[in-house]
């Protein structure tokens, strides 16, 4: 029998999963590792694990090995955390796995980007069950319906790894993956203070999130968790403003689903102009304050 289990690391994953589940077209249950979920997402059951802290992946995979019994599809919203865990579970339970699903042709045929998003592959899954991570942006949210049955589960999550410390950054700004507006900066931002003042300043004016290129993160201008691209966050805001970003394949892989891309670059031949909806050839240190004045 075909049935989907979505494993949610946090409540926002639950909401983001409804569209994916509807596109897959199978009856589904939701397992919330932490926090609670809305009750009208269209799933039959909500299983709450009530974990205070997500354990290391080996422990979590051991803990969930039994909980996936009876499901043909086990899915998580794509994130570093879900990939760390789900591929471990696929190894433990010998599951086929598909990473970063962006489209569904049938319950065994999926679309996913490869080679930094420069190619879309259609993959066929030849065995059941299958584990997968998916990018919610590709799956429009359905109308809310139904009321789910609530259950709880106790997980034993023995791990050989010890958590020494965890630091969670972030703050008042919206989360990159949910933001409607993102202002992103690249290598020319000089240092962390300049980045925060210039990129952060415009983002705050627009109520948006901040993003960065690998070059900016590598050189310590921006923190790692805001890297956007092939190996960072995949974003899909209504407006993405890229300032001082050349437009490498790896960066563009993370922003293609944005509704409007604006590029500000002083080099008229920068590759980002080929993909941006609106390009402004300008020095970002002039353009960004001017934009702030203009919208004030």
């Amino acid at each position: 029998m075909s049935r989907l289990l979505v494993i949610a690391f946090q409540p926002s994953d639950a909401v983001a999963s409804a569209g994916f589940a509807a596109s897959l077209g199978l009856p589904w249950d939701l397992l919330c590792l932490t926090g609670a979920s809305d009750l009208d997402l269209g799933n039959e059951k909500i299983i709450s694990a009530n974990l205070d802290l997500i354990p290391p992946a080996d422990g979590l995979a051991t803990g969930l090995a039994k909980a996936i019994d009876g499901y043909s599809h086990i899915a998580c919203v794509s994130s570093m955390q879900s990939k760390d865990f789900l591929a471990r579970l696929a190894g433990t339970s010998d599951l086929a796995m598909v990473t970063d699903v962006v489209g569904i042709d049938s319950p065994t045929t999926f679309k996913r980007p490869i080679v930094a998003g420069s190619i879309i592959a259609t993959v066929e899954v030849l065995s059941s069950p299958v584990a997968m991570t998916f990018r919610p942006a590709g799956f429009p949210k359905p109308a809310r319906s139904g009321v789910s049955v609530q259950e709880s589960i106790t997980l034993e999550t023995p791990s050989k790894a010890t958590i020494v410390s965890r630091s969670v950054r972030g703050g008042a700004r919206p989360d990159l993956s949910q933001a409607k507006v993102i202002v992103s900066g690249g290598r020319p931002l000089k240092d962390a203070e300049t980045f925060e003042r210039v990129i952060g300043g415009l983002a705050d004016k627009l109520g948006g999130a901040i993003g960065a290129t690998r070059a900016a993160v590598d050189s310590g201008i921006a923190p790692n968790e805001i890297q956007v691209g092939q190996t960072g966050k995949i974003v899909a805001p209504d407006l993405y403003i890229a300032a001082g970003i050349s437009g490498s394949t790896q960066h563009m892989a993370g922003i293609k689903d944005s509704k409007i891309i604006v590029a500000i670059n002083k080099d008229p031949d920068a590759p980002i102009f080929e993909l941006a909806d609106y390009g402004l050839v300008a020095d970002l240190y002039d353009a960004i304050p001017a934009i702030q004045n203009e919208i004030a």
Partner: protein
Amino acid sequence: MKVLVPIKRVVDPYTKVRPLADGSGVDTSGAKFEINPFDEIAVEEAVRIREKIGDVEITVVSIGKSECEEQLRKALAMGADKAILIESDAEFDSLSIAKELAALATELQPELILMGKQATDDDCNQVGQMLAAKLNRPQATFASKVEVSTSGVTVTRETDDGDETLSLPFPCLVTADLRLNEPRYIGLPGIIKARSKPLERRTPATTPVVKVRVVRVEAPPAREAGRKVSSVSELVSILKDRGAL
């Protein structure tokens, strides 16, 4: 201490690739091939560990066609001690690669397996975790810092919203992220010198059972061509008109 570093031969990440006209695969004709950049970072880290603590033997392994020798030689030139090429034309997926690597690791018993977090061709981000599971080892993925002690490793790993430090006892597995290190530059003389290091060719220990297969590839939907605007005020008024501001 023994360190095993699995590496993958991938199309150069700075080359733009396209689908073949019939959609049967990726057109890599004329493209350069390299060590997957994340695996190269793993090789570099293994070499740095040896430079720091001394008695470390580094084995690099690649599964694939005979051409993978080129990448194994480069890893030897970077400082690996020996290489194993598991030669095969067969089709593998992440899980079957993990099983083949697990067979090798069971034979070699490395305290530490270091590898890239994902390959830049298939972008799967699976093999490290699957291999750790098959070997029942603890794992630390997305490593940005690795410190080795006599009993294990302490790894700082990047997370979705910050970072985390894990302590793992040996034997364990670590996957490398971009900021772990910057691999050293290897010139041609280094590569020539590495020709005298041992490279063993073998056949696979397992028969791959493929559970996931690519059946078709295509170009992503193109974004409509954009245009340049002449001033900040033009830009702002367009964005206001479109309801984006």
